[in-house]
């Protein structure tokens, strides 16, 4: 705090400053308002009867007894809800040839995964609804379940949806040509088969919705725990036939989302339909078991990959085969192909080589739907790439740092493109590598590692470079026909007392959207942050926009706020010019005052301008119309995505007797362009790293051969807890994007994108003295012991 004066010392210079979140105080006092807390007059509760089978025909439903139970208001089947809801299909046009089946809130005749909701029971309380749900009898005729990814593609295997012809959702190929020849002539080839388990978001607050349909006005209000309220406004309007302007989606405090709460879930659609059938509010809150069984799962890939190098250790080509299983249908509206698409397009992208061939098969199976979760595809792509780079280092006798420094795209080579089509504006792989090396004291750690090995202590160091997709333009979803906005909107107002309200379409999930928007508006309007109220998460009070996903909040929402603030400032200055009889270009706004731009001398307070504008317009010069509210929209142009980049390192110790891993430390050097709030960016990074470490070491949705999830509780499914997690050191390199004035890129997914890769390399490094290797996540103790040949 006692540093010399910097640009941060100007009044209202908030960008780049670590300021805490004003809205966090409420949460600390226990005054959060989550969907689970919401109670409306005459509200009812729904519980669902779920399928015990992974694949079965519904033969009959008998709800006679259940209907007579206390408190029961309605029991609805698929046919009942089909009357109010149009089906949806989770495909996008730009994934050529992808297919999926139409979905309804509840199935008409077939169940396709264990735990699928079949019958809805609405009652006065959740407990009564659950009692009655137990009395509903559903008769099934079991069908063979398709579980295994190879079996799913074998001719003669049962087809889950016969109308689709086979169990293939999508098949993609990339081929720059001559790959077989290049591999045949390579000095070195390394290859591996990787397995990535399914895991899931396990948000602390489960999915929740309160749907409130008023038939008198044909008006639906959905209080919905989601990160994308506008997307759901559009979906509810179209699928339930309600005019869009009559649909309001409110997303208040959300207890974690990470991509999981932006997909359409059958139960949520059913809850809206039930509210329409009943004309009363209906609440659905998933319990923890329902969350495990029905929240989207993530990953689930088997990747066979090889890398070719010349005799100098230069990577010359990669060849990849990814099979990913996504459940029985593709998720809506973002599909279940984006994950695989990002895996096979992100592999290898930090490196210079231009020869690439990849095959992606997205396969249906009888498990719950798989779709986007934090860092979509990235953890798989970089675990594969970075493990092969380490294997190549071992093969060529190069140090892992050295092989990367030979192969990463040079920092002065931009703009450039990956062989997979991604375009990079400007990245800083080498600067990040150099910074990491010094941050972690790499050479000392290597010396210590060698020393400890002599005492039979096995430590490993793993490094992983990465890029991350952020600030997505319409190329992401819009071009595929999805009604998902890539633009954002803000309406910003000076109130009569000179305060500021900014209603903006990016949403708050605790990552700090409202805080950074307040910082940006404060700085660019010239008003103290304390006087700015940021409003988010309500389609009725904010303009339509993309909200938050794929790390777009700061980059796109932040730019929207910046431009809105500038436009409003122009209006303020022009009005002040009229009032003061001064040239507008001689005026500025600072700390809530109109000042002389040159001297900083205070001329008139913003509150006084507002008072005159709102209450004494008669005193303004004739013809002056004060405009103290402005609207601004912003959609990214230029590069289709603003890629960020960085590098991570993991330091672990493996107990070779038990297979247990102690994670000693983790480092991240990250370049997300202009950093708006270092405090918030670093905490995004840490939270993201830990989610990736969960996937690397603990988290897996384990199914049996019949498609039953066997560990669907928080006691059985392991999540990272405080005791197992390391301290995480973070540093930044800042390469602002020139596509926006703000220059910010995303940072929410970078941690998750490469921490599994770093961990995988660290464990392999630790067990290298035993000529052992592991290529499966999570790296459980028993898998590590198996890799060591001890069991």
């Amino acid at each position, binding site marked *: 705090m006692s540093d010399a004066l910097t640009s941060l010392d100007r009044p209202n210079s908030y960008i780049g400053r670590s300021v805490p*979140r004003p809205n966090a105080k409420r949460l*600390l006092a*226990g005054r959060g308002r989550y969907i689970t807390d919401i109670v409306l007059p005459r509200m009812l509760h729904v519980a669902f009867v779920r399928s015990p089978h992974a694949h079965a025909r519904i033969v009959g439903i008998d709800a006679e007894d259940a209907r007579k139970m206390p408190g029961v208001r309605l029991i609805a089947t698929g046919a009942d809800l089909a009357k109010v809801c149009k089906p949806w299909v989770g495909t996008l046009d730009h994934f050529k040839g992808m297919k999926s089946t139409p979905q309804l809130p509840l199935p008409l005749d077939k169940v396709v995964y264990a735990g699928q909701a079949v019958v809805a029971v609405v009652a006065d309380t959740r407990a009564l609804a659950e*009692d009655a749900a137990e009395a509903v009898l559903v008769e099934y005729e079991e069908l063979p379940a398709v579980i295994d990814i190879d079996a799913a593609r074998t001719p003669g295997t049962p087809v889950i949806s016969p109308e689709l012809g086979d169990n293939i959702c999508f098949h993609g190929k990339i081929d720059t040509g001559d790959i077989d020849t290049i591999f045949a002539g390579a000095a070195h080839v390394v290859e591996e088969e990787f397995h990535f388990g399914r895991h899931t978001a396990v948000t602390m607050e489960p999915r929740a919705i309160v749907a409130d349909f008023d038939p008198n006005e044909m008006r639906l209000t959905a209080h919905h725990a989601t990160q994308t309220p506008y997307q759901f406004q559009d979906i509810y309007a179209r699928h339930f036939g309600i005019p869009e302007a009559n649909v309001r989606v409110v997303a208040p405090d959300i207890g974690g989302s990470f991509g999981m709460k932006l997909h359409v879930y059958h139960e949520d659609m059913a809850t809206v339909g039930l509210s329409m059938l009943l004309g009363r509010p209906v609440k659905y809150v998933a319990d*923890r078991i329902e969350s495990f069984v029905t929240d989207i799962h993530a990953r689930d890939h088997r990747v066979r990959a090889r890398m070719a190098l010349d005799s100098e250790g230069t990577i010359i080509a990669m060849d990849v085969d990814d099979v990913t299983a996504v459940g029985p249908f593709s998720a809506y509206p973002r599909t279940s192909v984006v994950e695989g698409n990002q895996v096979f397009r992100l592999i290898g992208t930090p490196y210079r080589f231009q020869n690439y061939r990849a095959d992606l098969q997205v396969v249906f199976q009888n498990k719950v739907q798989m779709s986007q979760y934090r860092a979509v595809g990235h953890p798989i792509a970089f675990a594969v790439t970075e493990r092969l780079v380490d294997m190549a280092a071992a093969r060529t006798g190069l140090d892992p740092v050295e092989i990367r420094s030979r192969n990463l795209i040079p920092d002065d080579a931009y703009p450039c493109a990956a062989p997979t089509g991604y375009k990079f504006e400007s990245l800083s792989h080498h600067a990040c590598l150099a910074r990491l090396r010094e941050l972690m004291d790499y050479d000392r750690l290597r010396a210590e590692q060698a020393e400890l090995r002599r005492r039979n202590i096995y430590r490993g160091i793993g490094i992983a470079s990465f890029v991350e997709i952020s600030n997505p333009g319409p190329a992401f979803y819009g071009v595929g026909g999805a009604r998902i906005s890539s633009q954002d909107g803000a309406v910003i107002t000076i109130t009569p007392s000179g305060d500021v309200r900014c209603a903006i379409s990016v949403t708050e999930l605790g990552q700090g959207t409202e805080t950074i928007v307040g910082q940006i508006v404060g700085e660019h309007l010239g008003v103290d942050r304390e006087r700015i109220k940021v409003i988010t998460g309500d389609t009725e009070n904010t303009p339509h926009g993309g909200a938050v996903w794929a790390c777009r909040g700061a980059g796109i929402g932040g730019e929207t706020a910046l431009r809105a603030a500038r436009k409003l400032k122009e209006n303020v200055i022009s009005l002040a010019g009229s009032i003061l009889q001064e040239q507008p270009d001689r005026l500025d706004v600072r700390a809530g005052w109109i000042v002389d731009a040159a001297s900083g001398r205070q001329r008139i307070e913003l509150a006084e301008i507002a008072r005159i504008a709102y209450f004494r317009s008669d005193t303004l010069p004739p013809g002056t119309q004060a405009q103290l509210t402005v609207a601004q929209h912003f959609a990214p142009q230029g590069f289709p995505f603003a890629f960020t980049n960085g590098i991570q390192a993991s330091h672990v110790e493996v107990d070779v007797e038990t297979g247990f891993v102690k994670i000693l430390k983790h480092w991240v050097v990250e370049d997300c362009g202009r950093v708006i709030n270092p405090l918030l960016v670093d905490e995004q990074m840490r939270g993201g790293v830990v989610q990736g470490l969960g996937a690397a070491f603990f988290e897996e949705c384990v199914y049996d051969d019949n498609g039953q999830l066997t560990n669907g509780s*928080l006691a059985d499914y392991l999540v990272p807890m405080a005791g197992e997690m390391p301290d995480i050191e973070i540093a930044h390199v800042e390469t602002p994007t020139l596509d926006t004035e703000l220059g910010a890129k995303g940072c929410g997914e970078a941690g998750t994108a490469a921490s599994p890769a770093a961990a995988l390399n660290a464990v392999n490094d630790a067990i290298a003295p035993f000529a052992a290797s592991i290529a499966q996540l999570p790296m459980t103790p028993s898998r590590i012991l198996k890799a060591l040949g001890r069991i």
Partner: protein
Amino acid sequence: MSNSININVTVNGEAVSRNVAPRETLADFLRGSLELTGTHMGCEMGVCGACLVLLDGRVVHSCLMFAAQASGSEVETIEGLTERAAIADIQEAFHQRNALQCGFCTPGMLMTAHALLSQPGVPTRDEIRDALSGNYCRCTGYESIVDAIETVARNRAAPAGSKNVVAEVGA
């Protein structure tokens, strides 16, 4: 189910008398009947720590107890601790250090922190991490929470006038 039990319990210093269903958990009772929604539920099986409250001064999982079992006891929730400013320094440290994101785990984290910081001495980082072993947080990665608790422990142990500000963060 229709038969109910009358319970008398002191909640946040106030005597409360209510009829509850035998199967109603303390968590449901606090959240539903008393509208104390600061107590959260994340697992309903005693592993996530979102539902922690104080029962006669001890930290308990309100999801694992029936409301009826709390009869005759004193219960304190996040709302009560906040109102009597018992954890104001912990809340402030969490705020400054951004030791929360979505905030759903936070009331439970604060209960654990309160219990730990009520013990004498300054816990090590490992001891803080151990104390948090029953509190799941999906957002933060825990380090900021450990930092915040460590700061409060040091401040409480330090002689008046020599308090630390929360560890400087970022650039």
